[in-house]
């Protein structure tokens, strides 16, 4: 068995009821899903719940998986987007799982609870600005700029040609530049920036 199996290999094993393989995929991609959900909701607790729902949905819909790239993350983010759109229905469907998990509040993050509260305030402000854009343009900003996906991967997530992704992103950037925001100097996608130290 390879030391560093690909997502495809792990997923193939997981569909044969290998819980350990599923666990490895979980470790690889949970943080990306968690932060994507936060950036779409501006709530860490909702992001935590949505991340749980995404994994449960991924398993429920395992026969729908079509990997177009090495990574399963684009498909997981597509599931996440679907869960975000149908949050309440997803909550009802997976209430048994959610009831088993510890409900974490901001206060439980003892050392960085202040930072997390600040995150939520800032994110809500950003989403308020972003809401001026078309919904489909907001989606490509979240996936390209914030999650750090390639154009091809974003195309896979939202089910459109790569050219459409480019044009949507260009339109969104243009609108943000000219009417809504002052871009900062740091052009790196958020996914490329270092993760702050966390005691957990």
């Amino acid at each position, binding site marked *: 068995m390879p030391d560093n199996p690909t997502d495809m290999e792990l997923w193939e094993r*997981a569909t044969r*009821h*290998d*819980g*350990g393989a*599923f*666990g490895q995929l*979980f470790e690889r991609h*949970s*943080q990306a899903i*968690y*932060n994507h959900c*936060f*950036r779409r909701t501006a709530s*860490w607790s909702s992001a*935590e719940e949505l*991340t*749980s729902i995404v*994994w*449960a949905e991924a*398993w*429920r819909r*395992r*026969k729908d998986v079509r990997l177009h790239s090495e990574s399963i993350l684009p498909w997981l983010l597509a599931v996440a987007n679907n869960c975000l759109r149908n949050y309440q229905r997803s909550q009802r469907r997976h209430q048994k*799982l959610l009831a*088993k*998990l*510890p409900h*974490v509040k901001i206060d*439980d*993050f003892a050392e*960085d609870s202040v930072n*997390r509260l*600040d*995150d939520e305030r*800032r*994110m809500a*402000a*950003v989403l*308020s*600005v*972003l809401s001026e854009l078309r919904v489909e343009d907001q989606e490509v*900003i979240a996936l390209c*700029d*914030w999650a750090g996906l390639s154009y091809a991967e974003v195309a896979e997530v939202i089910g459109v040609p790569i050219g459409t992704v480019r044009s949507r992103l260009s339109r969104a950037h243009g609108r*943000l530049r000219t009417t*809504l*925001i*002052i*871009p*900062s100097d740091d*052009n790196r996608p*958020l*996914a490329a*920036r*270092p*993760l*702050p130290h*966390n005691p*957990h």
Partner: protein
Amino acid sequence: MNSIDQVPEARPMHSAHRVALRREMETTVSTSPRRWQRSSVAFVLTVTMAAGGVGIAAAAVYVHYETVTNMNTAHCYSLPQLGDNGTTIAVLNPTTGTSQVVDALGTCGMLWRDGFLSPGVSQAVHVTGPITVNPVPNLVVCTMADGTAGVFPGTVSTCSKLGLAQPKPIAPAP
């Protein structure tokens, strides 16, 4: 003025939640039934239409084994009977055409558990409300004349009483 670059940086999940979620998912993956998903299976409940008065062949007194050769279809019976006695048959058709009946017993058990099959019900059961958990009787698999697997409520002698063979045991993989 806001900037999308003011988006907060990535943070990890709370470890208690992450560990609990991973454990729950690993358990779910490892223990979920190895069967078709409800969403990927189209199942059709039909009522046998054979002419009345067709009796059941006299029960054989010996155990006869036959291999299940048709792995694409299984029959789930609500009574340990063949013929026109109102036996409901569920015919399972994989929508993809590629799935196989690898676990007829488990699949029929699912239909019992979810209320699609009930003891002695002589017609198709339409479940429109929420799925409820129902008692599953003891089920046995027999090899039907057409090579498919038939799953009946009954005991170890049910196949021979119906004049059917029991599935030939499959040798374990080396």
